[in-house]
C-alpha cells in the first residue's frame, strides 16, 4: 500500500524535475541566443517600415532575374540528377538486405557523413577551390543529395516484401530477373517519389547558395539587400517564392500519384503527362543554360586536395571559444523551435479542417504555412538581420518562422487524421470548442506533435549552424571568417565541431523520439 504511494510520489517528483529541467533549458537558451521581446517590439515598426520600403517591387532587372532563376532551377536539377546516379548503387550498398560486411558499414557511414554537413557549408568550401559559379552549387547540392537519397533508397530497399522475391525465385528465374521483377517494382515508385522530393528540396536550397557565391538567385538577393535596394530585393523574393511554390505543388502532385499507383492511369493521364512535360522542358532548358565551367572544374580538383591538406592538422587552440559558440548555436535552435511550437499550436488548429468548419479560415492559415515553408531559412535570416540587427536573435526568428511553416502543416495534418468518434462524443455532451480540443483532440495528437517537434529541433540546430553566414548568430560566422582568412586549420576544427554536434543531436533526437512515441 505505502509502497505504491511512494511510487506515485516518486513519479510526481520525476515529472516535476523533468518539467523544471525543460523550463531551465528553454530559459537558458533564450538567454544565450539573445531572445529579447524588447528588441522584437522595437524592431517591429522598423520591420513594417522595411516591408513598406519593398513596395512596389521593382522588376526592372527582370532579364537578370530570369537568367538567374533558370540557373537556380538548373542547379537544383543537376544536383539532383548527379546525386541520384551515385545514390542508386550506394543505396543498394547501404541496405542491410542487399549488402553485407564491411561494405555495408562503409557505405552507410559515408551517406550519414555526407548528410551531416549543410549544403551551404559544402558550397563555402568548394567555392575556395572551384571558384565562384553555379557549378559549385551543383556540386554542393549533389553531395548532400547523395547523403539523403542513398539513405531513403536503402530504407526503401530494406522495407521490401520478401514474399514475392521468393515466389519469383521459385519460378526458376535468374538472379537479375528476380531483382528486376520482384525488387525493382517494389522500390521504384518510392525512388521516384524521393527523387521528386529531393528535387524540390534542392531547388529550395539553390535559391540561397548564391549568398556564398555558388550561383543562382541568392547572389542577386544578397547584393540588393546589401545596397539597401529593398524594392529590387522584393522582386527577387517574389520570384524565389514563386519558383519554390510551383515546384513544390508540381512535385507533391506527381509524388502522390506515383505512391498511390495512379501515375499515368486513365483518369490522371493528361494531368500527369502535362506535369511530366513541364518537368522535362525545365530539365532540357536547364541543361542548355547550365553554365558549367569545365576548366574551373578541372583546376578545382587539385585545389581541393591542397585545401584538404591545408586543413591538417586541425588547430584546436581556439576550442573554448568555439565550444561556447556551438552552445550559442544549439541555443538558437532550441529557442527557435520552442517559439515555433508556441506559434504553431494555434495555427495548426486553425488550419485543421475538422476543427474549424470555416473553409476561409483554414485555407488562409494553410496558405500562411505554405508561404513560410517556401521561404529558405537563410533568406528569412537576411531579412531579420535588417529588422532586428546582427546577432543570434535574427537567426532565432528566422528559424522560428520557417519552423512554423513545417510544424503548422504537420500539426494540422495530425489533427485532421484524428479519430472523429471521441470528438463527436465530447461534442454530444454539449462541450464548448475549447473543451472539445482539450479533451478529445489533444490526447490523440500529443505524441505525434512531440515526434514532429524533435524532428524540427534537429533540423533547426542544423540550420542554426549556418545562420552566421548572413550574420544571424552562431558558429557559422566564424566558419566563414576562418575561410576568408585562409586559416584552414581553424576551418577544419569548426567543421569538426559542427559535424559532431549535428551527429550528436541527430542521435539524441532519434533516441528521444523512440521514447516519446
Amino acid at each position: 500500500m505505502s509502497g505504491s504511494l511512494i511510487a506515485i510520489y516518486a513519479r510526481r517528483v520525476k515529472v516535476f524535475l523533468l518539467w523544471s529541467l525543460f523550463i531551465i533549458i528553454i530559459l537558458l537558451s533564450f538567454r544565450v541566443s539573445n531572445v529579447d521581446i524588447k528588441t522584437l517590439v522595437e524592431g517591429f515598426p522598423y520591420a513594417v517600415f522595411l516591408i513598406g520600403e519593398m513596395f512596389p517591387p521593382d522588376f526592372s532587372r527582370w532579364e537578370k532575374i530570369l537568367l538567374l532563376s533558370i540557373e537556380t532551377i538548373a542547379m537544383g536539377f543537376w544536383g539532383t540528377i548527379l546525386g541520384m546516379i551515385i545514390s542508386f548503387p550506394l543505396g543498394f550498398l547501404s541496405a542491410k538486405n542487399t549488402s553485407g560486411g564491411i561494405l555495408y558499414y562503409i557505405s552507410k557511414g559515408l551517406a550519414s557523413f555526407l548528410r551531416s554537413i549543410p549544403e551551404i557549408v559544402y558550397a563555402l568550401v568548394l567555392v575556395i577551390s572551384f571558384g565562384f559559379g553555379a557549378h559549385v552549387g551543383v556540386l554542393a547540392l549533389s553531395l548532400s543529395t547523395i547523403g539523403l537519397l542513398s539513405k531513403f533508397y536503402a530504407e526503401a530497399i530494406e522495407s521490401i516484401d520478401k514474399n514475392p522475391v521468393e515466389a519469383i525465385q521459385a519460378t526458376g528465374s535468374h538472379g537479375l530477373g528476380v531483382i528486376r521483377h520482384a525488387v525493382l517494382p517494389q522500390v521504384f515508385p518510392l525512388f521516384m517519389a524521393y527523387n521528386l522530393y529531393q528535387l524540390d528540396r534542392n531547388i529550395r536550397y539553390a535559391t540561397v547558395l548564391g549568398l556564398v557565391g555558388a550561383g543562382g538567385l541568392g547572389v542577386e538577393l544578397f547584393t540588393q539587400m546589401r545596397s539597401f535596394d529593398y524594392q529590387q530585393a522584393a522582386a527577387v523574393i517574389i520570384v524565389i517564392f514563386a519558383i519554390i511554390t510551383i515546384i513544390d505543388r508540381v512535385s507533391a502532385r506527381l509524388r502522390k500519384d506515383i505512391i498511390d499507383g495512379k501515375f499515368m492511369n486513365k483518369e490522371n493521364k493528361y494531368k500527369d503527362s502535362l506535369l511530366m512535360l513541364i518537368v522535362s522542358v525545365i530539365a532540357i532548358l536547364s541543361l542548355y543554360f547550365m553554365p558549367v565551367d569545365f576548366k574551373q572544374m578541372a583546376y578545382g580538383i587539385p585545389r581541393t586536395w591542397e585545401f584538404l591538406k591545408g586543413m591538417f592538422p586541425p588547430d584546436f587552440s581556439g576550442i573554448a571559444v568555439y565550444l561556447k559558440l556551438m552552445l550559442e548555436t544549439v541555443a538558437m535552435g532550441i529557442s527557435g523551435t520552442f517559439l515555433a511550437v508556441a506559434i504553431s499550436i494555434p495555427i495548426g488548429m486553425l488550419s485543421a479542417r475538422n476543427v474549424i468548419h470555416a473553409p476561409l479560415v483554414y485555407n488562409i492559415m494553410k496558405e500562411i504555412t505554405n508561404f513560410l515553408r517556401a521561404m529558405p531559412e537563410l533568406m528569412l535570416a537576411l531579412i531579420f538581420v535588417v529588422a532586428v540587427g546582427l546577432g543570434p536573435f535574427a537567426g532565432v526568428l528566422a528559424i522560428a518562422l520557417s519552423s512554423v511553416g513545417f510544424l503548422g502543416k504537420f500539426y494540422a495534418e495530425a489533427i485532421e487524421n484524428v479519430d472523429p468518434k471521441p470528438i463527436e462524443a465530447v461534442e454530444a455532451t454539449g462541450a464548448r470548442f475549447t473543451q472539445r480540443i482539450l479533451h478529445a483532440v489533444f490526447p490523440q495528437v500529443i505524441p505525434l506533435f512531440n515526434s514532429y517537434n524533435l524532428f524540427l529541433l534537429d533540423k533547426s540546430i542544423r540550420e542554426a549552424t549556418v545562420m552566421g553566414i548572413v550574420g544571424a548568430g552562431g558558429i557559422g560566422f566564424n566558419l566563414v571568417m576562418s575561410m576568408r582568412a585562409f586559416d584552414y586549420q581553424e576551418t577544419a576544427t569548426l567543421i569538426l565541431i559542427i559535424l559532431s554536434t549535428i551527429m550528436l543531436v541527430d542521435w539524441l533526437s532519434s533516441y528521444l523520439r523512440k521514447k516519446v512515441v
Partner: protein
Amino acid sequence: MVKIENIKKRFSGRDVLDGADMLVRKGEAVALIGPSGSGKTTLIRAINGFVVPDSGKVIVGDKEINYKNKESLRQTRKKIGMIYQLFNLVERASALENVMAGALGRLDNGVNLISSTIGLFHKKERDNAMELLKFVGIEDKAFERVDRLSGGQKQRVAVARALMQDPELLLADEPIANLDPKTSRKILDLLLRINMEKGITMICVLHHLDTVTDNFNRVVALKNGSICFDGETHNLTHNHIHDIYEFEEENVEETRCLAA
C-alpha cells in the same frame, strides 16, 4: 513425379521433419494435412529447394534435387509452380506483369534472357499470359495494379503466374486459408480443374478436413515431422483424425467441424 525418401530437417534443435517418405505419381492430386507446426510448409519447401534437408533425398521427375548446385536447383524450380497462402505477388506491379514474371525461369538463355530480364517479353508470351488470365477468369483486371485486387483475384493472378511456368508440378501451401468460403470454393475448383484438364500433378496443403474428403482421393497426414497417414481419403477414419490432431475421444465429431 515426386519421391521423398526419409528426409530429415532440424530447426533450432527440433526435428521438424523426422524421416518422412512420400511418393506422388504423375497427374495425381494429393492433399497434405497435419496440425500446425507439423512440418507441412517445410516439406513443401524442400521440394522446391527453399529448405535444404539435413539428410534423405527428394526426387522430382527423374532427377534427385541437388541442393548445392544453384543452376541445377534453378532447373528443377522451372518445372514447379508454387501457390502461397498470402499470394506473394508484387503488389505495385500490374496483374499482367506478375503473370509474365512466371516465364522468367523458362526464358533463360540468349536474347530471351536479356529481354525478359529488362522486362521486354515476346508478344507470344504476352498473349500466353493474357490467355492464362482469361483461364483463371480475370482478364479484365490484367492492367490493374495488384494492390487494388481482392484476395480471391490476387490468388487467381498467382495461379496464372504458376501456370505461366508451364509446370509439371504444382505446390500449394494453404492456398485458400486467407479467403472467404465462397472464394475458397472457387479457387479450389480452379486448382482441381488445372489438375484434371492439364494433368498437372498437385500437392496441396489444406486445413479444412471436409474440403479434403470431398475433393481429394488421396490424403497424406504429417505429425511431428513424419507421415502418420497416407491413403485414400475414404479410409481416413475418426480414429485417424483423433490420432493426427490428438483430439479427445468423445469430441471427434465436434472437433472435426471446429478444425475446419
